[in-house]
């Protein structure tokens, strides 16, 4: 065999492999069917939503006050997706409350978007006040979380948005106080 055919074959294989590498390295938020997920994502999960779309989202809190996420566009915004039927979600809520209290001055704002009924969320908040706003959106919360990278729509799911709209953290499953505190400190130092 001459050298040219070997060279051509090698280049073709390399291009193919490089293409495969790019393809498999796409964001998990892509459209293709994917058989399974894992319990933790990280900042490498690129949400399929722009800063503008995040900040123009509007919803109603438990006191019937309508809000837009844009109200917190200058904050480090932690969006926690949860539901009263989700045990792990409720277990991490004291952590979220503590984080809100601890880092409010550093610019952290926690909000909870519930894939649950308004009645359930109000009853829950009366029993266990969170200290941060709760927004019941039974029909839309899971859908919105999927656009932020929550492929299977499971709960709890947490997203942190830097001032300006960049998503810097996503987590499927519970967060820890330490990791979020570190992230807040890192963000505040920038």
């Amino acid at each position, binding site marked *: 065999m001459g050298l040219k055919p070997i060279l051509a074959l090698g280049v073709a294989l*390399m291009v193919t492999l490089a293409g495969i590498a790019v393809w498999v*390295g796409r964001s998990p938020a892509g459209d293709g069917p994917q058989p399974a997920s*894992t319990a933790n994502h990280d900042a490498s999960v690129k949400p399929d939503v722009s800063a503008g779309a995040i900040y123009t989202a509007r919803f109603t809190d438990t006191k019937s006050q309508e809000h837009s996420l844009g109200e917190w566009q200058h904050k480090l915004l932690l969006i926690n997706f949860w539901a009263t*039927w989700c045990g792990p979600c*409720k277990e991490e809520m004291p952590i979220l409350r503590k984080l809100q209290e601890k880092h409010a001055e550093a610019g952290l704002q926690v909000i909870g978007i519930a894939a649950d009924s308004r009645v359930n969320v109000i009853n829950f908040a009366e029993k266990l006040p969170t200290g941060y706003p709760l927004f019941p959106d039974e*029909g839309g919360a899971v859908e919105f979380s999927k656009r932020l990278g929550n492929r*299977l729509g499971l709960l*709890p799911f947490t997203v942190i948005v830097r001032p300006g709209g960049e998503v810097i953290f996503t987590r499927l499953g519970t967060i820890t106080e330490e990791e979020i505190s570190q992230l807040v400190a890192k963000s505040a130092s920038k």
Partner: protein
Amino acid sequence: MKHDKWRGGRLAGLLLGSLATVAMLASHSVSASTNATSSEPELLEASSAFQVSARMVNDRKVELRYTIADGYYMYRDRFHFSINGTPIVLDKKSWPAGKVKQDATFGKVVTYRKSVRMLIPVAALGKDLSIKAVSQGCADAGVCYPPLAQTLVMHLGTSEWTAPQGEVASGFSHERPAGTLAERLTQGK
């Protein structure tokens, strides 16, 4: 000629080395896209974690059976059924015992693992039978699935059930917001 063969071998070796590098990059790309997840257990799609099937017990009852994957559990009080659009309320005394968990909101809740069966009363078999089964469960990995609605259909004159068709249920709300968050996003409201 000997020299050409040597050059050819060296070139082939170079190409193989390059290919190995590209392959390593490809594999790194895979791990990068799922970074920090490799040690975590994989999560199943809801319809795989909670598999439902049906069979006629007699001309008055249908048995629904949920096969629950290892590491997953389902809530007794999150099951809701309807037959041909009519809600069916099951007597809780007829449910299997299950395991009691303490919940911050709902107090004592009953959960099932491995499998759970329930008998659904059927009024008449004069037409196709469509059972809509809404269920909800969680994984020990620390996440919960949204309510899942699965529909099983048995056509009149047959004893075969269609494969369950699943979808995420909108939940069990008594009231609905005026437009979902996603709709409001799309509409830019």
